[in-house]
């Protein structure tokens, strides 16, 4: 058996290299998010946002941009035979789940590094909330990475895969979004970041991440068979 860590780094490095070379997912996600901010500017007819409105706009936009990346996550494995190659190799299949979830997590972090400052620039009066917001973003990214990888690996084997992924993923991330918006709302409130129930929401986010990473890890074997 090839050690899991070697397989994990091989698959992750392959994915990141291909993304860097083709730039298929990330620029599209960033562009999508930025344009969505502009649409919200006019849809809400507001030039500055705070509190629940700011939190809602930010998370709705990030979630829908994330769906673009989720949809593309396994396309190369499906169309270019990566699933078969990985199943023929002497590796633990969980390495594929871990590598793909890490790749998606990386995309989301990079997306947010670009897009959240733009959001602050467009709508926020001060950048003071960004530091604590980073903790919420990271925990939410982990949850989206876990569920997104799980759903995407199944959706890619279906017809209408671009439809099926978002369809199933959206209700699944509702609890994650409840916690993320709940934590962000006081952070983005007028008059500087507040920390009302910040710890509770971070705990909910962590619990969500933990449960779905475990579920993904446990069931992923069943998803690779024909």
């Amino acid at each position, binding site marked *: 058996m090839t050690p899991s860590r*070697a397989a994990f*780094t091989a698959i992750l490095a392959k994915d990141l*290299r*291909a993304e860097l070379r083709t730039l298929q997912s990330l620029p599209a996600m960033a562009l999508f998010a930025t344009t969505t901010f502009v649409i919200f500017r006019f849809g809400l007819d507001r030039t500055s946002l705070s509190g629940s409105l700011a939190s809602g706009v930010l998370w709705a936009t990030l979630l829908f941009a994330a769906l673009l990346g989720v949809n593309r996550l396994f396309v190369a494995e499906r169309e270019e035979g990566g699933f078969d*190659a*990985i199943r*023929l*190799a002497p590796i633990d299949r969980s390495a594929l789940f871990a590598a793909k979830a890490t790749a998606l997590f990386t995309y989301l972090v990079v997306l947010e590094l670009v897009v959240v400052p733009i959001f602050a620039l467009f709508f926020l009066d001060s950048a003071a909330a960004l530091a604590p917001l980073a903790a919420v973003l990271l925990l939410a990214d982990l949850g989206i990475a876990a569920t997104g990888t799980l759903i995407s690996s199944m959706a890619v084997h279906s017809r209408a895969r671009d439809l099926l992924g978002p369809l199933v993923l959206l209700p699944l991330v509702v609890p994650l979004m409840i916690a993320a918006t709940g934590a962000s709302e006081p952070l983005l409130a007028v008059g500087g970041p507040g920390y009302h129930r910040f710890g509770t929401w971070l705990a909910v986010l962590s619990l969500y991440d933990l449960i779905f990473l475990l579920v993904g890890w446990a069931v992923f074997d069943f998803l690779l068979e*024909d």
Partner: protein
Amino acid sequence: MSEAAVAVAGLRRDYGERTALDGVGFELARGETLLVLGPNGAGKTTLLRILATLLRPSGGEVRVLGCRIPGEAWKLRGRIGLLGHEPLLYRDLSGRENLRFHARLHGLRGEPAEARIAELLAAVGMERRAEGRVAELSAGMRQRLAICRCVLHEPELLLLDEPDSNLDAGGRELARGLIGPGESHARVVVSHDPERFEPEADQVLRLEAGGKPVAA
């Protein structure tokens, strides 16, 4: 070892209501070649995918390299080389990057991996074309790379689906060096052209539409 490389009896595979393989049986010794012939839809590719442990049999006995399928399929990973319709290469990576990726999946890295890749690329005449993206290569060049990928980890059993497709005469000659008959590996070759591989085959299995073996 005296045990057969592949032993199949009464193999059956259904896709929902459709039967793709029905009562296939053969035994293949190490170092030997089995040629599987049949028209489209005779289940040739299905047979290869079952032997490669990518597809579960619906019924019958299958033993590959001494391991029962599907029960002990995990013991076979890394011991089989599959050359199918799809080259199993990522279009956005170069040929060398693809081979490096597969080498790492098979636990081969660093200097030995680079040496093995260079040796294989030279064997199929691809040393100079190994740095370009696979998407930019012709179908024949891709097939050459796929052959390298298939034998990279020195498999004990080669499963070859139309191994000559897209190859010119020179390519076929080079390919023979890597995936031709040999002492070190058994081969199952699938083709619908009876002429091509008959000379190198120790056994021939003929399938008809619906996956039934043709009585000799």
